[in-house]
C-alpha cells in the first residue's frame, strides 16, 4: 500500500467513524457502557424476582394470584391474575422486539436495495416499536387498576407488595424505553438517521430487548407457575 493510498484509506475510515469513539479494546464505548448497564440491571431484577419468589405463597390474607379466597367477613375473591390479558400484552412486547430489530436493520442499511418504502423505513419501525411499548403500558395500567378495584393494593399483603414492586419497576423501564424510542424518532424525522447513527439505535435496541427478556422471566415465574 502506498503512502497516498494509506492516507486516503485512513481518511475514509475516519470519516466513516466520525461519531464513534473507540476504546483500547477496539469496541465502541457506548456499546460497552450499555452492556455494563444491562449487567447491573440483571442484578437489580434478579433481586426483585428473588424477593417475589421468597414471598410467594406466604400472604396471610387475599386476594391471591391463583387461588380463590373468602375473607372472614364472607367476601369472596377470585384468583386475581388475568392470564388472557397478560398473554396479549406479552405478545405485544415480543412483537415490539421484532419491530426494534427491523428499525435497527433499516438504519444500518439505509439507501441499500431492499430497504425502500414503508417497510424499509426506520421511522415506521421506530414508531411501531414505541406504539407497541405504549400498548404494553396500557395493558399494565388496566391490570393495576382492575387489581386495585378487586381489593389488591401494594399494602394488602406480601403478594401485592412484591408483585406491584416487581412489575412496577419493569413498567417504569418500558416507559423509559418508549421515551428513548420517541427521542430517536424525533431525531430521525428532524435530520434522518443513517448508517453512521446505527450505534445510537443499537444501544436503544439492546435496552429494549433487555426489557423484553425480563418480561419473559416475569411472565413465566409470576403469571404461569402456580
Amino acid at each position, binding site marked *: 500500500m502506498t503512502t497516498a493510498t*494509506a492516507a486516503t*484509506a*485512513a481518511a475514509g*475510515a*475516519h470519516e*466513516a*467513524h466520525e461519531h464513534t469513539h*473507540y476504546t483500547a*479494546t*477496539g*469496541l*465502541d464505548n457506548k*456499546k*460497552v457502557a450499555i*452492556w*455494563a448497564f*444491562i*449487567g*447491573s440491571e*440483571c*442484578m437489580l*431484577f*434478579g*433481586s426483585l*424476582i*428473588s424477593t417475589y*419468589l*421468597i414471598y410467594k405463597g406466604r400472604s396471610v390474607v387475599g386476594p391471591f394470584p391463583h387461588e380463590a379466597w373468602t375473607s372472614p367477613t364472607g367476601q369472596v375473591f377470585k384468583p386475581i391474575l388475568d*392470564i388472557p390479558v397478560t*398473554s396479549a400484552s*406479552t*405478545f405485544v412486547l*415480543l*412483537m415490539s*422486539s*421484532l419491530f*426494534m*430489530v*427491523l428499525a435497527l*436493520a433499516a438504519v*444500518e442499511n439505509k439507501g441499500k436495495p431492499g430497504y425502500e418504502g414503508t417497510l424499509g423505513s426506520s421511522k415506521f419501525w421506530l414508531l411501531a416499536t414505541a406504539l407497541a411499548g405504549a400498548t404494553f403500558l396500557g395493558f399494565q395500567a388496566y391490570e393495576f387498576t382492575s387489581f386495585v378495584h378487586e381489593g389488591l393494593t401494594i399494602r394488602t399483603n406480601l403478594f401485592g407488595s412484591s408483585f406491584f414492586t416487581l412489575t412496577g419497576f419493569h413498567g417504569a423501564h418500558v416507559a423509559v424505553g418508549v421515551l428513548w424510542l420517541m427521542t430517536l424518532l424525533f431525531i430521525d424525522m428532524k435530520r434522518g438517521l443513517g448508517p453512521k447513527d446505527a450505534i445510537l439505535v443499537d444501544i436503544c*435496541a*439492546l435496552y429494549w*430487548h*433487555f426489557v*423484553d*427478556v425480563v418480561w*419473559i*422471566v416475569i*411472565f*413465566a*415465574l409470576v403469571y*404461569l*407457575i*402456580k
Partner: protein
Amino acid sequence: MSNDRAHADHVHEHPTWKQYKWVALWLFVITVAEVWAYYIPALVNSKAFVPSILVMMVVKFAIVVMFYMHLKYDHAIFRKLFMGPLLIAGATLVAFLFLFRG
C-alpha cells in the same frame, strides 16, 4: 490503519430480515405453548409443569439474547459483561430460595 483494524475486529454479520421473522415466529409459538400448558389441569398438577415452563422460558430468553441482542454475533466482551452479572443474579436467586424455603 489502526482505525480500520479496530473496525474490522468488531463488525460481525447480523441476522437477516428473514431470520428475524423466523425468530419472532418461534417466540410466538413457544409463548402459545406456555399459555396452552397453563390451561391443561392434568399438566399443571403434574411434576412436569414447572420444569417445562422453566425450559420454555430459558429457550425464549436465549433466543432473544442471541439473535435480537446479537450476542451470538458480537464481541466476546459483551457476552462476559452480560453473562457474569446474569450468573451472579441467578446464583443469588437460588441461594435466597434455599435460605428462605419453608
